């Protein structure tokens, strides 16, 4: 299997609005891909089509050589793909530990069977998985805190931890550092990327901060007006004049590609 994710001629229209078109991309396993582009350029639409939240109007999506085009979110999440959200989607009335436990309990075992549904939620293995994820993302301090009261950075980490606890092979992060102060962005991405590397995941992350993209991505996909206008390693893609005109706005100094 050469590419873990293969997208061909993907398109999405809403009535007369073309949100995404002509997207063709192959992503090899364990690659870290930064997705950049202005708001409304089609990045989240792209992610939503891969994760089944939106059905493509045209084109195909293949994951690990299986066609997953138009499959339901649930099926796709069960196949080894997972995602985090621009606005962290967590369970506010539960503690951090219970949040991850819920995610872990769902992830274990075959889906949809009666036996699966009737297992106890707080099984020892489930709780162990949850604690492991908490360690991995360094949020042990907040283990028993109600999620509604968490600071923004921890919320985002929790959101990602919940996506990761099921050991997906492909992870899509929608603006993981949005809402985080500039000083903390790098620290957060450090934690996240280290955690993901230890689990050998392929990662696609949407990001607006070009320095973060330069530092953490092996490859950059630049979106504009619904389609990909640049595709390559960060130093190449970010120096592309079209990208600089339409997206990044300024010449980005060549950041040290200190790969984590």
């Amino acid at each position, binding site marked *: 299997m050469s590419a873990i994710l293969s997208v061909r001629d993907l398109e999405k229209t809403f009535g007369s609005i073309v949100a995404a078109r002509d997207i063709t991309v192959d992503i090899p396993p364990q690659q870290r891909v930064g997705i950049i582009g202005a708001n409304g350029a089609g990045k989240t639409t792209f992610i939503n089509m891969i994760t089944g939240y939106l059905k493509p109007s045209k084109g195909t999506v293949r994951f690990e050589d299986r066609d997953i085009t138009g499959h339901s*979110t649930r099926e796709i*999440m069960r196949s080894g793909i997972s995602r985090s959200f621009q606005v962290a989607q967590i*369970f*506010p009335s539960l503690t951090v530990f219970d949040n991850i436990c819920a995610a872990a309990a769902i*992830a274990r075992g075959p889906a949809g069977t009666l036996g699966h549904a009737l297992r106890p939620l707080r099984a020892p293995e489930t709780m162990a998985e949850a604690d492991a994820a908490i360690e991995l993302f360094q949020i042990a301090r907040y283990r028993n805190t109600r999620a509604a009261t968490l600071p923004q950075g921890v919320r985002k980490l929790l959101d990602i931890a919940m996506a990761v606890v099921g050991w997906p092979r492909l992870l899509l992060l929608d603006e993981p550092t949005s809402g985080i102060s500039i000083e903390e962005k790098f620290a957060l991405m450090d934690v996240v990327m280290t955690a993901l590397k230890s689990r050998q995941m392929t990662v696609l992350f949407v990001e607006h901060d070009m320095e973060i993209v330069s530092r953490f991505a092996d490859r950059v996909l630049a979106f504009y007006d619904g389609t990909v206008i640049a595709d390559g390693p960060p130093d190449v893609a970010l120096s592309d004049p079209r990208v600089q005109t339409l997206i990044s706005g300024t010449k980005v100094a060549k950041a040290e590609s200190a790969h984590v």
Partner: protein
Amino acid sequence: MATRANLVGAVCFILLAAIAPALPGWFLSLTTIAFANALVVLGLIILWRTGLVPFGQALYYCAGAYTVALLARWFKVSDAFVLIILGGVIAGLIAFLIGFLLARYREIFFAMLSLALSMILYGVLVKTESLGSTDGFSVEPPTFLGWAPHGQALGFALYWLVLAVCAISAVLVSAYFRTAAGALAVPIRDNEIRVEFLGVSVNRLIHIKLVIAGTLGGFGGALGAMTIGHVDPAMSYWTTSGGFVFVTILAGAGSVAAAFVGSLVFEIVRSIAVDVLPGFWQLILGSVLLLTILFLPEGLGSIATRFRRSKEPAT
């Protein structure tokens, strides 16, 4: 902790069963009806935890009741155990069919659609002459595996039967709450989209909960029909559903015990109110409901939870 609650519950049920001969007849009858209603409330609690408030559970109560009445009248079935089971099964089947539609709705729209469906049954029953229209019709006293008690003995038999059904339901529902399917109620209420994105079909889980709640409602209606000895379309009217919702608020959706304690308290308060201040009982009920919502939003059950929490060491 879970097993301790089960133990306490078991002791309570056994005590209640044992003191039957010492209780005055009217109180026995009141408790029997209260616990039959408690089964419907238990179903409501299952849905309430998921963030859904159905305003039409009376549909299943009525379905269970009429199933029993019709089986007794048309098919001469008189065994209480058979009647209850069939009452629950028919109601559960209706819930299963309705669930395909209803499970897709949330919040106010869920409440309204469930209300509409219960009013449809009401309308059908009122217009059906052969079923007695608004007067309904009477239900023969049931038999118990051949034994045909009368008078006081019948009262005892129904009382013990209700207690048994409630005890079994309480155990099963408690166990359900500890399973993944049951425990996901709070995550679904908190953030349904996230649950879906973790790989669970929320609609399917809700569909299952609807069936469980419907079946419990059917059991309640079946027992109610046998105890009251009469069925009529008002059992499906929206005010009946409102009564069940009322009890759920009063008791809180925090525990299985809440359904039984809440129902009993409600029946006692209602009886007293109707007896002592007949012109004011709705006013009293309404005021109690209002005060509960304003000052004890988690219901009476929250008093117990707060008490328990203050005793636990901080983790």
